[in-house]
């Protein structure tokens, strides 16, 4: 991980209140899919950086991208950044997603802004022998984003919306279980709101499915590098904490309390 000053090279609204910002790094980094950046919002009044999953990292141009939802004053400021503006960050952070050699059939389950970390998995394993089936859930048709990027890199893509205005009415998790027998994944990667992850965890348990399942968690962070113990969650036994920023953000679904 490095402390770097990066230059904005793009910042566009891709869905209502959801932006994709791209920035150029001054040097190369070793990036693994599922890792994140702790990015300043470029204003002295906001002391905390914002942790965002990295969508992609292009080694040739040292360019990375993240998607973020405008939720408060900090992300609002970020949405106003223009090409050429400078931001500071620590990058790359966290453990990321890892696919073992024998894991060929991969299920990616994403809900809302949780689809973004999964996009980096498709990017990293684009030219591999891995086969992806993707399940995405959104609030409604207007929030459906990055659809094309998922579509052209996966064997099958299932999109559900809460109100049925795009794809089927349902959730990413319901789509996943409906397709499970067909998919027979070797491994599951998921990211999304806590209710979604809980539904996934209980759904796997009810069906007695023991496929390895890894989830990427989100938590309000301080330092982003593992020192301040702000972004913790309980281990499944409740007797210890793990740091989302340093030990995660990707955890085996049974390892942590969700």
């Amino acid at each position: 991980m490095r402390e770097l000053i990066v230059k904005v090279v793009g910042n566009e609204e891709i869905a209502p209140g959801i932006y994709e910002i791209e920035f150029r790094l001054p040097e190369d980094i070793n990036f693994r899919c599922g890792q994140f950046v702790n990015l300043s919002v470029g204003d002295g009044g906001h002391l905390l950086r914002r942790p965002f999953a990295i969508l992609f990292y292009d080694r040739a141009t040292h360019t990375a991208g993240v998607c973020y939802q405008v939720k408060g004053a900090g992300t609002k400021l970020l949405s106003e950044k223009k090409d050429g503006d400078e931001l500071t960050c620590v990058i790359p952070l966290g453990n990321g997603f890892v696919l073992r050699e024998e894991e060929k059939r991969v299920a990616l389950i994403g809900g809302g802004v949780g689809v973004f970390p999964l996009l980096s998995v498709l990017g990293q394993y684009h030219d591999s022998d891995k086969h992806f089936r993707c399940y995405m859930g959104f609030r409604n048709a207007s929030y459906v984003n990055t659809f094309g990027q998922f579509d052209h890199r996966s064997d099958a893509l299932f999109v559900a919306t809460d109100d049925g205005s795009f794809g089927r009415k349902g959730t990413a998790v319901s789509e996943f279980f409906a397709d499970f027998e067909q998919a027979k994944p070797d491994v599951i990667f998921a990211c999304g709101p806590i209710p979604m992850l809980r539904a996934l965890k209980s759904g796997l348990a009810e069906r007695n499915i023991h496929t390895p399942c890894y989830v990427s968690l989100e938590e309000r962070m301080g330092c982003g590098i593992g020192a301040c113990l702000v972004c913790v969650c309980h281990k499944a036994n409740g007797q210890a904490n793990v740091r989302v920023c340093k030990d995660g953000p990707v955890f085996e679904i049974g390892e942590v309390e969700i």
Partner: protein
Amino acid sequence: MANLHTQICGVSFSNPVIAASGTFGFGREFNEVYDISVLGGISTKGLTLEARLGNPTPRIAEGHGVILNAVGLQNPGVEKFIADDLPFLRSKGIVVIANVAGKTLEDYAEICRRLDGLVDMIELNISCPNVKCGGMAFGIYPESVEQVTSVAKGAMARTPLIVKLSPNVASIAENAQAAERGGADCISLINTITGMVIDVEKRKPILANVTGGVSGAGIKPIAVRMTYEACKAVKIPVIGMGGITCAEDALEFIIAGAHAVQVGTANFTDTLAMPKIIAGLNDWLDAHGVADIAMLRGTLKIG
């Protein structure tokens, strides 16, 4: 190159910039970003006798120019610190200050006894605002400040004792004097100011703990004022902190009378904040023809 070397209670610091407790863990993570041996010292994450899990999340919130935290003294316990983390810190050759907290006077005595002679200094946390019985109760009134200081001091034969004062009190000067009477070798201040942020849409506090400790650039004027008051009130050395983000900020505390400073929240905004402050102090002193940082200490001109 100006002389940044600083001596406090017989402990030698290569420079007066110390990582503040709670923002820097036990140094390992920041050492992945830069070699922390450039620091003057580190005050560890608050230690207790037994391991603690701390508060529920969210543990952090933000205001303009400030942050609030309510971590609640999550730590691995003093024995694990001694076994797993102290050797690493020792290997960095910087001053190691163990920040300690307890629920009872006996807790304070026992943890000080355990660490006596193992670390360079002990910083008594009697002002953590985020845990019930986390020491805050001891830090409010002069009588209890004196009592807990005296008990901690009595438990140690070798290690100098710093008492970290709370700003959430009636009189900083009185509490500083109480610590001095209790036998403190040094005072540090300020701990965080108790605060609160509310999510208007949800009508709920952002922090799971409801309230938290306010820190960061926005509290610096309060911290400078309190450091100034403490320096006037006692003869023992004072370590100032609160909102320091650059060399000039650090110099405000030194000019107010502090021997050294601690840097906390700035580490979140810029992981290289402390090396930059140290380099900035050197540059400032050179530019102003000051050969030794000690020449600035307590040089505030009033009237």
